[in-house]
Each structure stands twice: as structure tokens, then as C-alpha cells.
């Protein structure tokens, strides 16, 4: 009887210690998927996806099976990165030429509403001074459109220059048929 209790108790002790040690040693810090997803997102928190920011969208994708093609500023590249992380098939993105915000300086009244809205500080201007967009910094997030009281901001397709031009893929042999 004593022997049985001691041996079983000893076994239980060893197993308990082992489990406790393993729990400490192989401890997993939270869910890394959300962090990984957030990493590939533009981080501008533009809200185009319908979530209040990139992190909430990342959480929704990771935990609630949200669609992976809701990030227009990230474009196809981001969608593919999300697909790779989640291990799902890529979803079609709405075809949209890369655009930049354009401020009609005639109509701009210099209210700075768009400057406050721009998540990447790509709009410059001051009170009662016409504003303008730094094209290179604009991330195509549309966030400045809505706050403008005179509706003078439009998204225009980015102009292709010699320095941004990219070669098109050959049609391939199947173009024959």
C-alpha cells in the first residue's frame, strides 16, 4: 500500500515537474500570426478595409477568417503576402491603377483638414495657404478625400515616367492560339 502510494506519488511528481518545466521552456508568446500580418500591411491605418486600422484588420484576418483582399493601398503584393502567411489561396484584387491624391489648388481654402487626416504626412500646407501633395510619399489611401470641405481632392492615376516604367511581360506562346 505504502509502496504503491509512494511510487505513484513519485511518478506524479516527476510528471508534474516535467510538465511545469516544459511549459516554461516552450512558452509561446501570444499569437505571432497577427504580428506577421501587421508587418506586411501598409501601417497607415487608412481604414479602407472597413476596420479602424491595420492591426484590427490583421486580427480579423487571423482570428475571424476575414477576406484577405481588402487592402487597396497594399495592393496585390500585400494580398499575396497575407495569403502566404495564412496559407490560403490568393484572392482577386480589384484592378486599380496606382493613384495619388491631387489637390486642386484653386479650390483649396487652406483648412488643414486633409493634413490632419493624412497618416503619412504627405500633404504640406498651412492655415489659409493652398495645400499640396508630396507625390512620392502618398500611399493611395484615400483618407484625405472625405474630410475636405470643398471636395478639391481627387485621386489621379500615377504618371508613368522613364524612371518608374516597368517592362511588360511578353505575351507568351499561348498568345498564338
Amino acid at each position: 500500500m505504502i509502496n504503491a502510494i509512494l511510487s505513484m506519488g513519485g511518478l506524479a511528481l516527476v510528471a508534474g515537474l516535467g510538465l511545469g518545466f516544459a511549459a516554461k521552456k516552450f512558452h509561446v508568446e501570444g499569437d505571432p500570426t497577427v504580428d506577421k500580418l501587421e508587418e506586411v500591411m501598409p501601417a497607415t491605418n487608412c481604414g479602407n478595409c472597413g476596420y479602424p486600422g491595420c492591426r484590427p484588420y490583421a486580427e480579423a484576418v487571423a482570428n475571424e477568417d476575414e477576406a484577405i483582399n481588402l487592402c487597396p493601398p497594399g495592393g496585390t503584393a500585400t494580398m499575396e503576402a497575407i495569403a502566404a502567411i495564412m496559407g490560403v489561396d490568393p484572392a482577386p484584387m480589384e484592378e486599380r491603377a496606382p493613384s495619388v491624391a491631387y489637390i486642386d489648388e484653386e479650390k483649396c481654402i487652406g483648412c488643414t483638414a486633409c493634413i490632419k487626416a493624412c497618416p503619412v504626412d504627405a500633404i504640406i500646407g498651412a492655415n489659409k495657404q493652398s495645400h499640396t501633395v508630396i507625390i512620392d510619399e502618398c500611399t493611395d489611401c484615400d483618407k484625405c478625400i472625405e474630410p475636405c470641405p470643398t471636395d478639391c481632392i481627387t485621386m489621379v492615376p500615377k504618371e508613368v515616367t522613364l524612371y518608374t516604367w516597368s517592362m511588360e511581360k511578353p505575351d507568351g506562346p499561348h498568345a498564338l492560339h
Partner: protein
Amino acid sequence: MGIVASVLKKFHGGVHPEEFKDLSEKCAIEPMPMPERLYVPLHQHIGSPCEPSINVGDMVFKGQTIGRPQGFVSAPVHAPTSGKVVEIRQHPVAHPSGLTMMVAVIEPDGKDTWHKDISGLEDPFKHEPAEIRERVRCGGIVGMGGATFPSFIKMSPPKDKVVELLIINGVECEPYLTCDARVMEEQTTEVIDGIKIMLHGLQTENCVIGIENNKPRAIEIMKAAVKDIPEIDIIALPVRYPQGGEKQLIEVVTGRQVPSGGLPIDVGVIVHNVATAVAIRDAVRFGHPLLARPVTVTGLGISRPANVQALFGTPVQEMIKHCGGLKNGTRKVLMGGPMMGVAIGTLDVPVVKGTSGILCMTSNETTDKPEQACIRCGRCLQACPVSLMPTEMAWLSRHEELDKLQEYNLFDCIECGSCSYVCPSNIPLVHYFRFGKMAIQTADKEKKRGEIAKQRAKAKDAREEKVKAEREARKAAMKAKMAAKRKAAAAAKGEKPATEKESAPAAGGNDKAAKAARAAKAAKAARAAKAAKAAKAGGGTKDAAGDGDDKAAKAARAAKAAKAAKAAKAARAAKAAKAARADGGTKDAAGDGDDKAAKAARAAKAAKAAKAARAAKAAKAAKAAKEAKADGDSQ
């Protein structure tokens, strides 16, 4: 001779297309009449584009800088002749995209006057290599074989590398082109002088000029010219495309392979083109910047094939006109050679520093067969001079497997076109590789842009956070100030005459916070004074000086103090009144401040006038406070 292999090596692969050099190889380099307008692009080299340094309407002189280089890898652009800048605008250039570039449109005045600051070094060999390099840089000299890499960079090898050999590239392996051969035949002394200057600039002593066997006259003339110059050697090379590629030429001459992603200097070699040698000589000896170059106008589609010395900015149209125009049946005009040239969409395109030829091709010379499926014959593998795997790379490129493409060393591809040339299925392999390269570069750029956007978003968040915190802090400070003020006011109410003088200076300050602080201090001081006085007057009221938090306690303290000090106050007020009366005024009471004089005076007057009333009021207040305290204690 140093590292030159005793037996010529062979680079992998290569092809031997039909040469067609006979069309123009006998044509001497001829000058051209001045075009009506020159369209000088402000970016004629590899690297960053130039900023225009002239304005529309300016008169420019020959050799004047019109494009200022931006960044290190860049080369200035100069006015090819004297005249007026009539426009600075976008204009088509030879580029596969068919897009436009900023050009300065110059209307020549016909006088061809040199800019006044043009001067050369009489004896370059007496000058430091750095001086030579600087002249090459200012001369806007770039590699004239077609790559247009700024030459001064090649002449400034890193300190830890030794230049063992200078190779002068007279290979001209592209079919059709003959301008380098003509330069060697006609400008032999200039080429050799240029080589000597380069050797001096590089501080090295060995030079080899590589010339393909299909230019026997050039070989003969050059050999005769260097007979008495031991440091320069001529090597005749078997004809094989792309032997004129820098890395291929190095392998043939020295047997050394430039490592993947490396530069010729990594194997101790520097390679320059023959035409570059002449340009460097002109820049160093005479201070003449690079303004013109020999261009081969050839092909079965041109009426009179020729080698023409063309100013940069000359429209292709003018060159063709000079050579008798296009024949019927011309299908394509290329800028450059047939293997690596760029088809141009309009004849308005100007000649630039990298234009070695203008090739007018008829349908006999071009193919326009559709791409067919790869049959895995492996000919491209045999043809590739860099030993790449074009079959796999085209496949990966088509499916946009960008990571794998890089594993196949896509960026080592020199885009020579040998693989496309041998492909029996007409697969535009180079097109696929260029597409792949650009897709990778675009992806990298996008990634960088995304990172920058992230940083900017973070910076904005941080800034907003900071502003918010500051606002909160300001609010808190304001609250504290108000509290202090209230406290001061309360204290002043209980002990006005005593605090009059101390609180008066507060009125003079501008800063609100400082004022509040001062008021608080004054209140404290007043309290202390009060306590001291009370202690003196009544004794046993020490606890009045304690900094109690409880309002009731505070009020009680104030009341006690007030009560205890009543007598003293009255006495003092009486004294003050007496003094005022004695002096015939109250001015001295206000004597310790300029701006506070009025206030102090007013206070003093008030003190005098309301002496009795105040005393009564204070007593009343004290009584009330005492009662309040009693209430508080009992609760």
C-alpha cells in the same frame, strides 16, 4: 605581360551572327552639317539624371555645362555648340518604353564659339592622377561602348584594389557597327595618347588593346603605332559575340572571371572603350567636354551607309537625311547594334553619348515570328556567355517567381541577346529577363516605399501623442495655477495688509505661470509671516505654520492667525497710517516696484481707508471659520 594569359582563353557560349560590317567599314568618319535644332537629353548616362543649369532663353557656348550632375554616379551634360536655349521640355528618347525625357532644345547660332573657361593641361603627365580624374569627371565622359557608365568612377579604383591591367576595348563585336574600327584607323595617335593619359591616371603600366580579327586594317595600323611603346600591346581576337562585353573580354585576355555581382577591378582590371580613350584625351589635354561621337549609320535600309561624327542632340531624322534617306522596305530603325540596340518609335529621337549606331533594317534583316513553346533543345544554355540557364529563367520569369529568379542569378545576365538569337522557338528570352529584373526592382522599390510610409505613419502617431501629452500637461499646469491663485486669493483675503507688499510684485510679471508661482510663493510667505507674527503676538499658535491639507484645518489656521494677529495688524495699520500722514503721502509704500507702484499705492490707500472695516471683517471671518472647524471636528 603581367596577368595577360599567354594563350587566349575562351569565354563560355557566344554566337557569331552575320557581320554586315562591309557596309560601312570603308567609310571614313565624316562631319555633319549643323542641325537646325539640337535636342540634348539631360540624362545620357547610367546613374542619376542631371538638373538643368540653364534657363530658357539663355545663350550658351560650346562646352558650357547645361546639365548639373546629381549624386555621385552621374555625369554633366554640355552644350554641343553655341546658340540659344529655346526650350527645356519632355522629348522622346531611345528607350524601350518610348517615353519622354527632359531635353534642352538648343538653336545653334552657327558660330560654334567655345566657352571662355575651356582650357586643358599642356602636359598631363606632370599632374596628379586626381587632376586627371577631375577633368574626366567635369568633361562628362562616360563609357562609349554603349553602357554609358561615368568613366571617372572607373578611373578611381578603391584604395585596397590594385589595377594590374588596363584593357582597351576595340572589339566592336556587335554586327554592323564600324565606328570603333574607324576611330582606331583614323585617330590612332589620339587613341594612344588617351591610353597613356589613362595609364598615368590609373598609375599602372600595362595596357592591352583587344581587337577582333574582322578588323585587320585597324589591327595593322594600331600594331604599327605601338611598336615602340612597350607598355601597350595589341591582341587580335577571334570573332565571337559578345566578346566586347567587359567581363567576357577580361576572361579572354586574362583567363580570370569577374565574380558574380563583382566588378572588373575585383580581378585587377579596368576596361575602357577606344572612343572613350579619345574622349578622355580631349578632356584632359584641351578641356573639351564630350560633345559628339562617331556614329555608324548603316543597315540595308539606308541609302548611303556612313560613319558620322554627330553632335549629341542631333535627331536621328537629320542623320538619316544626311545619309541619303531610308530605302523603301525599311522596317525598323534601331539605336545601337542589332543585338542589343533599342528600336525607336520616332525619328525625332536624338543621338546621345551611348549611341554607337543607327541601324535601318529591312524585312530581310529582321524577324517577326511569333513566340512558340520551348522545346528544351538547350541551345540557349550553350550560347549564354555567363553560363546562366535561360530556359529555367524564362519559365520563372513568365510565372513571376521573383525569388527563384534571383537564385538563378538573373542579375548576372548582360542582356546580350545570344540566347534569343539561337532560340529556334523565337522565344524573346531577353525580354523575359528584362521583365523579371524590372519586376524585382519594382518590388524592392515598393517594399522600401512601404517601409518609409510605415516610418512616417509611426512618426506622425508619435508626434500626435506628444502634442496630446503636452496639451494635457498644459491643462494640468493651468489647473494648478488656478488652484494656487485661489489659494493666494484666500490667503490674501485673510491677511491682506500683510501680503500687500509681497503679492504686489506679481502684477509686474508677464508669464502667467510665473505669476501664479509667484502668487503661490507670496501666499506661502504671507502664511509664514502670519504664523510668525501670530506666534509673537499670541504665542502657542505654532501649528498655524503647518501645511495642512484639510480645508477646514487651513481655514481654522487662517482664522486663528487672523485672530491672533488682529491686534498686531491694527497696530501696524495705525503705524502705517501715521507714517503716511507724517510723510504727507503714501508713495514710499509703493517704492519697491515700478509697475506695481500704482497697485501698492492703491493697496496702501485701501489699507488706510478700510482699516477698521477690515479688522472687523477678519474677525467675523475668523469666527465663522472657527465655527466651521468646530463643525468639522465634531463630525
